[in-house]
């Protein structure tokens, strides 16, 4: 197919505005899937995604479409995650596209994530096609949606296509707009190969599968290719495109300029493929690699440790597999006095962290502990040296610190008018500042605020949601570093600091947080044979103490013959329970304690 008949696009939308439903309709309309095959939502492949209603992973899919002008087109659809934690993945998908459908729910209007994603798409020069979805709803308000398009996103309202993904309205207009408004890819199929690897996955039978956008040139099975960053060569075994249904891999003879598809090239380990790298011909390489895209740095860090030290290798393997299709996830071996050997992990944001932890638990069946999340602090030492610190344990002695700077974020929060004052209170509590306020319509406002990233890591979103009864939405962009009065808060168990519980917090909040943590731990640590003293300390000074007194009674009353089995099972259960706790000397701390500490903002 000629490159001029190829269109590469993706869909950006706030959660629940209908991205997945619309994708399914497009796939049906183009005959890529039969209607009966369209199970609920085809594109959301992973369980976790379905549960959380977010698409974590981008899956490109090829469709064929004959337009009203009689020409035949190939449309490549990349799905994109909706949450800003995944802006990295969003920009990867965007990098493979020339255009994007921007979905707005006619009943909800523009949301915070819409704003953040539109900013991203515009930065990458994509053609946006606004789609106002769910016009079938009785409370659809198309006029307001159009006004918001113009006022907030500066997109001409007349470009909007009115649609209902559910009722199948406007699907053909959308396909026509894709063909008409999105430019075809540029690039020559007979030029030297330059293919952008924008993702990869690991298939048990095929090894590493590269997701690629061919920018120029052609790639075929049998071609010798090389990855430019690592300068390693491979023989291509197979190329093709993705289909939504099984078998997912649809073999093609070649991929050429403008195509999006996959390449399998006998690559054994995930670490060999750097996402963003350029694939070129081994014999006739391109002069330079593609600009790739900016490798985002993780913003949030946490230590992840196996509960059973023996699981270290298993955890390492699991992390390797996860990183393969989530290049934004970073990990590095570290050790903790309290927790033994584990990994320091970097995430794009808190949602990203939660998802990784949940996937480790669920898909890989790992019993793990995660330490309190940290951002990257800049620490200026008295000798003028500047350190980057993502783990409270790396802080130098406080007498050697000139100042500590923390990362700020610009946060867009959209809420119904009536919740402004409690929300402003929340922002104050989180050491934030409201930069400006803008009415979206008669009912909603958008607050542009500046907050320390550290303060929105743990419970900010939950609190914002609960204040606004679920009607608020937010998203953020990273801002600058700013010095602040930060201190290290330690938690001591029986006199020993448990490094996993340490955190860097603002001085004015340290004491109350210390008290809250100590109390929380007292609640979740079960009584045991030995008394447990819990203390919170700031710079060596104890600011709170609690204790879990030793158990008074724990003994079965009666043991007759048959009870032996029962009693033994009871003891076995006790032992099993202990195994799931982390032992610190004579104290056992249950997994929940670590989770609770994570939740105590």
């Amino acid at each position, binding site marked *: 197919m000629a490159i001029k008949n190829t269109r590469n696009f993706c869909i950006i939308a706030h959660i629940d505005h209908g991205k997945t439903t619309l994708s399914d309709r497009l796939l049906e309309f183009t005959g890529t899937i039969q209607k009966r095959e369209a199970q609920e939502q085809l594109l959301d492949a992973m369980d976790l995604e379905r549960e959380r209603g977010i698409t974590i992973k981008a899956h490109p899919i090829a469709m064929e479409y004959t337009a009203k002008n009689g020409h035949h087109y190939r449309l490549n659809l990349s799905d994109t995650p909706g949450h800003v934690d995944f802006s990295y993945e969003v920009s990867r998908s965007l990098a493979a596209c020339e255009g994007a459908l921007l979905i707005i729910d006619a009943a909800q209007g523009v949301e915070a994530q819409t704003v953040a994603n539109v900013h991203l798409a515009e930065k990458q020069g994509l053609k946006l096609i606004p789609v106002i979805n769910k016009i079938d709803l009785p409370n659809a308000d198309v006029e307001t949606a159009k006004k918001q398009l113009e006022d907030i996103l500066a997109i001409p309202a007349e470009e909007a296509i009115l649609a209902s993904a559910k009722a199948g309205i406007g699907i053909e207009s959308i396909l026509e707009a894709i063909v008409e408004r999105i430019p075809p890819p540029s690039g020559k199929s007979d030029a030297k190969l330059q293919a952008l690897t924008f993702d990869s996955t690991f298939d048990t039978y095929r090894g590493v599968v590269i997701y690629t956008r061919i920018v120029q040139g052609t790639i075929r099975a049998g071609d010798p290719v090389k990855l430019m960053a690592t300068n390693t060569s491979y023989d291509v075994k197979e190329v093709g495109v993705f289909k939504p249904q099984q078998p997912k891999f649809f073999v093609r003879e070649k991929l050429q300029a403008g195509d999006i598809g996959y390449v399998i090239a006998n690559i054994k380990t995930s670490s060999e493929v750097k996402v963003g790298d350029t694939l070129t011909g081994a014999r006739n390489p391109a002069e330079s690699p593609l600009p790739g895209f900016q490798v985002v740095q993780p913003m949030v860090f946490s230590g992840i440790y196996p509960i059973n030290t023996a699981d270290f290798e298993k955890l390492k393997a699991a992390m390797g597999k996860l990183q393969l299709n989530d290049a934004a996830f970073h990990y590095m071996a570290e050790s903790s006095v309290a927790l033994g050997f584990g990994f320091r992990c970097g995430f794009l944001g808190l949602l990203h962290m939660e998802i990784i932890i949940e996937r480790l638990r669920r898909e890989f069946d790992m019993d793990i502990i995660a330490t309190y999340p940290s951002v990257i602090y800049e620490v200026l030492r008295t000798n003028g040296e500047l350190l980057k610190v993502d783990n409270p344990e790396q802080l130098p002695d406080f007498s050697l610190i000139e100042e500590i700077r923390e990362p700020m974020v610009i946060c867009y929060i959209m809420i119904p008018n009536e919740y402004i004052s409690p929300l402003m209170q929340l922002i104050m509590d989180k050491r934030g500042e409201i930069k400006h306020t803008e009415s979206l319509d008669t009912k909603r406002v958008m607050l542009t605020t500046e907050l320390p990233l550290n303060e929105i890591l743990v419970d900010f979103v939950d609190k914002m949601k609960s204040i606004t009864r679920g009607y608020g939405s937010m998203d953020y962009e990273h801002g600058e570093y700013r010095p602040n009065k930060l201190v290290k808060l330690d938690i001591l168990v029986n006199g020993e600091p448990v490094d996993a519980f340490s955190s860097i917090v603002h001085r004015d909040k340290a004491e109350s947080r210390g008290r809250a943590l100590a109390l929380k731990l007292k609640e979740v640590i079960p009584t045991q044979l030995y008394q447990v003293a819990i203390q919170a300390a700031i710079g060596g000074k104890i600011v709170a103490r609690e204790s879990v007194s030793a158990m*008074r009674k724990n003994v079965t*009353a009666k*043991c*007759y013959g048959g009870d032996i089995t029962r*009693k033994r099972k009871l003891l076995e259960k006790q*032992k099993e329970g202990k195994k799931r706790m982390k032992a610190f000397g004579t104290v056992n701390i249950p997994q929940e304690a670590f989770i609770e500490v994570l939740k105590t903002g």
Partner: protein
Amino acid sequence: MVRHLYVHIPFCPKVCPYCSFYKEASDRNKTQAFLDAILLEADQSGEGLRPETIFFGGGTPTALSTLQLDFLISGLRARLDFSELREFTIEMNPATVSREKAAALLERGVNRVSMGVQSWDDALLKTLGRVHSASQARRSYHILREAGCRNVNLDLIFGVPGQSVALWRESLLRTLELAPDHISAYCLTYEEDTEYFERFRSGEFVPEEARDAEFFEVTMDVLSAAGFEQYEISNHAKPGRECLHNLAYWNGADYAGFGPSAFSTQAGLRRRNIADTAEYIRRIQGGLARHDFEESVPDGLRASEVVAFGLRTKQGISPEGIDPKVVSALTANGYLEASPDRLKLTRKGKLVADAVAAELL
């Protein structure tokens, strides 16, 4: 050779709301078939059994009539070798004791009686749903003594909702006045599938760890001062009056069990008879397998059971194979008393015996 026999009699005059032993309200129509089934079971599996101890438990064995008990004991005697029998215990509910029954039982060889008094306070007996009063229990006790029973145990329960420590101390003292040979003092346990458990789950009954601990301590104080030795967590005996049958369980001996829900452990195999009287009878009559649970108890497992149970006894356990670090932490904190060849619970350790056992295993 198996030396210990348990016979389960699953009938009670009235079912108590806290009790999870397998039992049903007495049913005259079933009893004869039941007795026949027990004897059939003795025919089927009495080989290799020469009991030193027999324990008739329940339920309430004395829910059977004098005649029925006579039939059962004579029947067993005709089938099994009683020549080495040293201890023959029968459990009683105070409401099911009569002069004739006591005399007949003693005449048939019963030499130990265990009676469920539970409390000497009528209000508490009512809370416990018992059919008898305190004075009836006292009368029954005297009947037993007058009939010539020289080895009597009384069961007591503490930690009952509404029971104060003072009331419990009082119950212990009233028990001592009667000079029994043995006292079993059980902390009330909320057992699944009982009315009490439901009330505990609904939050109506709230177990209080600290108060239960106090009950335990009072028990130890009062009974040891009266010359009783706590030879197992819940069991206190005058010298030489320990229950041999229970000691056999705790020492890991083999035993046979007849009757519905009875366990037996023989040659590394532990099995339970089905806990359903009608079904038990049907299977025995048809010569069918009567077990609904079975597990193998290899030597290693048996050894760890002996640790768990031995720890509860006055002999304690051997320190062999136990992590010395764990032992020294437990001794340093006053839970264990360690000598080169024995580990024993201290007084403080007895209160948390299960947690200590979990550390040691």
